[in-house]
């Protein structure tokens, strides 16, 4: 799991990537259909996560992410496995 502060950071990143600073984010929210992430947003999100968390995320992995909790899981897994 990621820590509460990291979760808050991640939510802030998602809000930046969808250009909605007041967006409410729930674990089961779909990044595209609920949160409004577009193709450019996927790249923006990936770049910001990599810089914030110091990890590398493959294009294939980020493209497979559907919901916010999937994104949390991906970051947790990447941090664990390196």
């Amino acid at each position: 799991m990621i820590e509460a502060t990291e979760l808050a950071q991640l939510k802030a990143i998602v809000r930046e990537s969808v250009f909605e600073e007041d967006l409410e984010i729930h674990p089961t929210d779909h990044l595209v259909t609920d949160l409004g992430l577009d193709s450019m947003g996927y790249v923006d999100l990936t770049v910001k996560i990599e810089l914030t968390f110091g990890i590398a995320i493959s294009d294939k992995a980020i493209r497979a992410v559907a919901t916010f909790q999937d994104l949390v899981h991906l970051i947790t897994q990447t941090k664990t496995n390196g």
Partner: protein
Amino acid sequence: MITWIQQPAAIKVGNDLVYLPHFEQSLTTPFIRKVYTAEERAYCDRFRDSTLRYASTFAAKEAVYKAVKQWDSSLTLSWNKIAISRERIAGKPSVCLLVDQEPPVDISLSITHDGDYVWAVALLSARSTTSTQLNA
């Protein structure tokens, strides 16, 4: 390594719309490094309005990605493996997939922009079903 599985002859389409004011905010150096090839960067940077060129190239890449996904949903191409080039400055765009095995497809591209939006369309046509199976 990607293995291109022969599919029945078909035409698939992909498109992408980019909103320039948002794109401009996202276009950072790490973004450019992740998405664009050296040749694409050199092309876009030749223009005073390089953001528009980066946006049109991005829209083209995404349109190609979606067309390829329609053709074979198991394939996921990285952004920097879809290389967009022009025959001359502001000329006809074309695409080269930077993968180990050339896919048995032809892809035609069209890009346009108006005001704050850039739009690209990719039309993919799979070659005949009798051609050779390409295995990794």
